[in-house]
């Protein structure tokens, strides 16, 4: 009953100044619209850029690093335990380049509940033979299905079918840059020379474009088995085990764990690509700052209009107080005016923001670096809308707070006697 009364008084005060109210609401609408559009666009952009590297990067990569032994024999001697030991010109041992005991590691990883999937990989240096010229290159031997599932491999194959890599023996998916240099197309046969001097003929079943030119100029993909054959190794030879986790935030911790558990080298995505996270963070921060600034400006508009309204409605406030409305009631009336401007403007802003981001999402955006992207990227995220409506309500509440307090403190005697 009481709420209804306060609401009806607020509503009629609002309607009495509906033009100003509308202007205030439009201010909120505008800022919420921009806020939503900005965040959706930035979010889309972040996802796109993250996708460029992060989606294709394993959360934890297990590999074997060629490096000198950390602990030298002299360190183990009891006589020298208390000393500083200097050994100059330490060289790495001649070791195998593959991850030892890879089959057991993969089996254990697949049973780990934190792990979403495992994709083994063989990386080998090769030369692409083009007539009399040899081009430096890298062949990634992959488990085609796992790679497609975990690292969206199929998205980057722009010609041919990625699954042919698995089905056709001795096949290769060439990087776009490599294919251009070699002037080959899908279906052609190319010749490569392995790092051990062996010549191999491979059939081109696809061409991929990652969006990073340096990668496309050098890299190619083949099946695990083909790569192992090129290297002349057995089919248990793996240089990398790529692990994708259910929760990316566990990566640093799990990388350490794998390192200790399996006696291998492991690197997490955060360490390997820290610059991407920083970039995403800064972009998000900027969009929030701009959005909140817009809202605060809108808040000042509401503050002004409420202040004006209070000066105009002094008499009404005085008589309300004289006839038994307390300061709290008057306060609530003005707070609810502010909140309804905020809510009304905010909800309209959400709708317009959705519309604007949808429009941005239709604008063509063609870039040779990103084969899968045809329009500007937009991220539709309910979270942005929630944040926007909460911000608009909170800002308008604070904008209304001071005027409402002023109204509640109006002394009716002063107003009535002043007449």
């Amino acid at each position, binding site marked *: *009953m*009481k709420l209804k*009364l306060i609401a009806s*008084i607020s509503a*009629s*005060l609002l*309607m*009495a100044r509906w033009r100003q109210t509308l202007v205030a609401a439009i201010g909120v609408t505008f800022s919420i619209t921009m806020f939503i559009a900005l965040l959706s666009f930035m979010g889309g952009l972040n996802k796109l850029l993250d996708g460029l590297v992060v989606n294709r990067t394993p959360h934890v990569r297990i590999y074997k690093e060629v490096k000198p032994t950390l602990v030298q024999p002299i360190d183990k001697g009891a006589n020298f335990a208390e000393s500083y030991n200097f050994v100059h010109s330490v060289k790495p041992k001649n070791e195998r380049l593959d991850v030892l005991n890879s089959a057991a590691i993969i089996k254990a990883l697949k049973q780990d509940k934190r792990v979403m999937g495992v994709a083994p990989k063989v990386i080998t240096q090769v030369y692409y033979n083009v007539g009399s010229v040899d081009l430096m290159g890298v062949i990634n031997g992959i488990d085609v299905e796992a790679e497609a599932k975990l690292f969206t491999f199929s998205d980057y194959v722009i010609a041919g079918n990625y699954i042919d890599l698995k089905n056709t023996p001795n096949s290769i998916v060439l990087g776009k840059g490599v294919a251009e240099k070699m002037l080959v197309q899908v279906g052609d046969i190319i010749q490569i020379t392995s790092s051990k001097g062996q010549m191999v003929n491979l059939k081109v079943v696809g061409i991929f474009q990652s969006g990073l030119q340096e990668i496309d100029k050098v890299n190619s993909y083949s099946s695990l088995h083909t790569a192992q054959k090129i290297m002349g190794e057995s089919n248990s030879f793996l240089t990398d085990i790529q692990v994708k986790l259910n929760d990316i935030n566990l990566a640093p911790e799990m990388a350490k764990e794998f390192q200790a558990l399996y006696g291998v080298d492991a690197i997490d995505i955060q360490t390997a690509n820290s610059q991407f996270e920083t970039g995403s963070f800064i972009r998000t921060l900027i969009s929030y700052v701009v959005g909140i600034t817009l809202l605060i400006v809108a808040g000042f508009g509401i503050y002004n209009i409420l202040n004006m309204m209070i000066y105009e409605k002094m*008499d*009404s406030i*005085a*008589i*309300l*107080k*004289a*006839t*038994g*409305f*307390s*300061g*709290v*009631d008057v306060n609530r009336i003005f707070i609810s005016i502010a909140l309804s401007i905020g809510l009304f403007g905010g909800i309209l802003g959400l709708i317009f923001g959705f519309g604007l981001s949808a429009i941005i999402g239709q604008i063509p955006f063609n870039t040779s670096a990103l084969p899968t992207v045809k329009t500007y990227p937009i991220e539709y995220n309910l979270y942005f809308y929630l944040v926007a409506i909460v911000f608009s309500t909170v800002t308008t509440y604070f904008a209304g707070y001071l005027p409402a307090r002023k109204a509640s403190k109006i*002394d*009716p*005697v002063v107003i*009535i*006697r002043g*007449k």
Partner: protein
Amino acid sequence: MENIILEAKGINKYFHDPNTIQVLNNISFSVQKGEFVSVTGKSGCGKSTLLYILSTMDTDYEGELKIHNLLMRDKSEAELARVRNEEIGFVFQFHYLLNEFNVIKNVMLPGLKLGKYTEQEVEHNALEKLKILGIESEALKLPNQLSGGQKQRVAIARALINNPLLIMGDEPTGNLDKKNSELVFDIFQELAESYQQSLLIVTHDQEFASRTQRTIVMEDGKIIADSKN
């Protein structure tokens, strides 16, 4: 003496700006149920100041004010608002109607605030009050469509809506012409006689004062005469 509805005891009031001046000096009197009292005196004698203290809107005073035998001194702002809402009806020199609401809603507002009755009941009561004042036909008009006398009658209806213990008026006829003043006075008189409504009216109109049941005359912040007419 059980019928005392308002009692003031030794009320002093000072204005501090720019110098401390005593505007009310040891005012003591009481109002009985059903009395029609007028307070009169020259401009600046403190009669309006007294009224605002009695109305609980002004809380900066010394002395004791009891309404319905309850001391007003210790009550909070919200409690005082409740007292004004329930026990006191106001009529001012200026009508103070809310232009955003129509006549009937203006009358209903204090009743809705009280929340004792449903909206339908309050609306019914408001129509009753308008009928007593002879302006029920204007119920759906906006205040700025009414004449001065009609507005003042709406204000009286608003004062009556919660069946208050006491109606207070601050120069209720001050802004009205002879004819309308007469009309308002007749309404007050009828309320006092037919409905046993207590009224406390501040006026500088000697003729108005002399026709009420009891007149309190003030001068320089003191009561100098208190007599039945």
